[in-house]
């Protein structure tokens, strides 16, 4: 279903190709937004380093990954313009990260649960 919707979007673009003059120019992200994202990324880097020196036990890696994920989402949405992209592009990007999560989750589920009940 979802995939059908994606290909429909592409088909619509093909069908409405003649009207491209109306929306030929892509959304131009203003430099001020790039500067804000750049600053946020630097602050995130500072927070990551700062948090690493505080003993939070098991939450240290959680915080580090969480900040890294927020930084990555900012880069993907604004530096990579996904926020302003078509639904097909958003779906494509989401599919990539979903497949990556499948790789990590399924692999770790096996390794972390293999010795369960044997302790």
């Amino acid at each position: 279903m979802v995939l059908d919707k994606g290909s429909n979007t592409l088909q619509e673009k093909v069908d409405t190709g003649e009207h491209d003059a109306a929306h030929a120019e892509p959304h131009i992200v203003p430099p001020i937004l790039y500067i804000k994202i750049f600053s946020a990324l630097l602050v995130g880097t500072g927070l990551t380093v700062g948090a690493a020196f505080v003993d939070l036990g098991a939450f240290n890696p959680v915080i580090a990954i969480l900040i890294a994920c927020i930084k990555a989402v900012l880069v993907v949405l604004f530096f990579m313009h996904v926020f302003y992209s078509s639904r097909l592009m958003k779906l494509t990007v989401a599919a990539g990260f979903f497949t990556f999560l499948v790789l990590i989750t399924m692999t770790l589920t096996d390794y972390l649960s293999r010795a369960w009940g044997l302790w």
Partner: protein
Amino acid sequence: MDSHAIAVTPGDHLDHGEHAVSHEHPAYLRHHFESVEQQREASAFGMWLFLLTEIMFFGGMFAAYLIYRNWYYPAFVAGSNTLSITLGTINTAVLIGSSFTMAMGVWCSEVRKKSGLVLCLSLTILLGLVFLGIKYVEYKEKFELHHVPGANFSIEKFVHPEDPKTPALAADMAAKTQVYFSLYFAMTGMHALHMIIGISMLCYFVIRARQGAYTNGYVQPIEYFGLYWHFVDIVWIFLFPLLYLINRHPK
């Protein structure tokens, strides 16, 4: 250019009808696309598909990292603590800066500022080279300390740490720091290779940008190379905490 050559052949008119005759298309519109919009969408889609394969390529190494970190955690802590947080943080900032200049390059291309585009691309090259230079200093130190996996690897500093506050590892666990350094060199090395490829492509783009190739409305090469460069930045955003910041407060 070649698209124009083909678009004026009679056979093409059969496919496109009055469309090809009545409209003036920009030179960069390839003949197999209906419109600039469609060409842009198809290029972005193709670039993202390539990046998805890249996610899975680095994903395999991240999966290996997570499993071995789970198995040999003390060795990973000891290995991670030999890295310089200062150099790692500077490099993170440098790379984020290069992503920023790349994004500004895309903006310059969109608003057709030729000198701005050349400047932004050149700054991106410069920051990329600074990153690789710092990486070289870090690698060199690892070779000098015999912390490169292989026949010359030394577990000495992990079994008998110089700093009394650093916990000593048993010889078998200390040997597993080689697993950490293997992953360190594989992941940062692959990342550095991507940067070298990116810098080479940027050099080409600077030459073409000086000729005005990307400030005539044709933003795609700059925009989609930007996607690659930002992707490399994202990989580092994850590599930095995972490799440099494992348990920085050993009890």
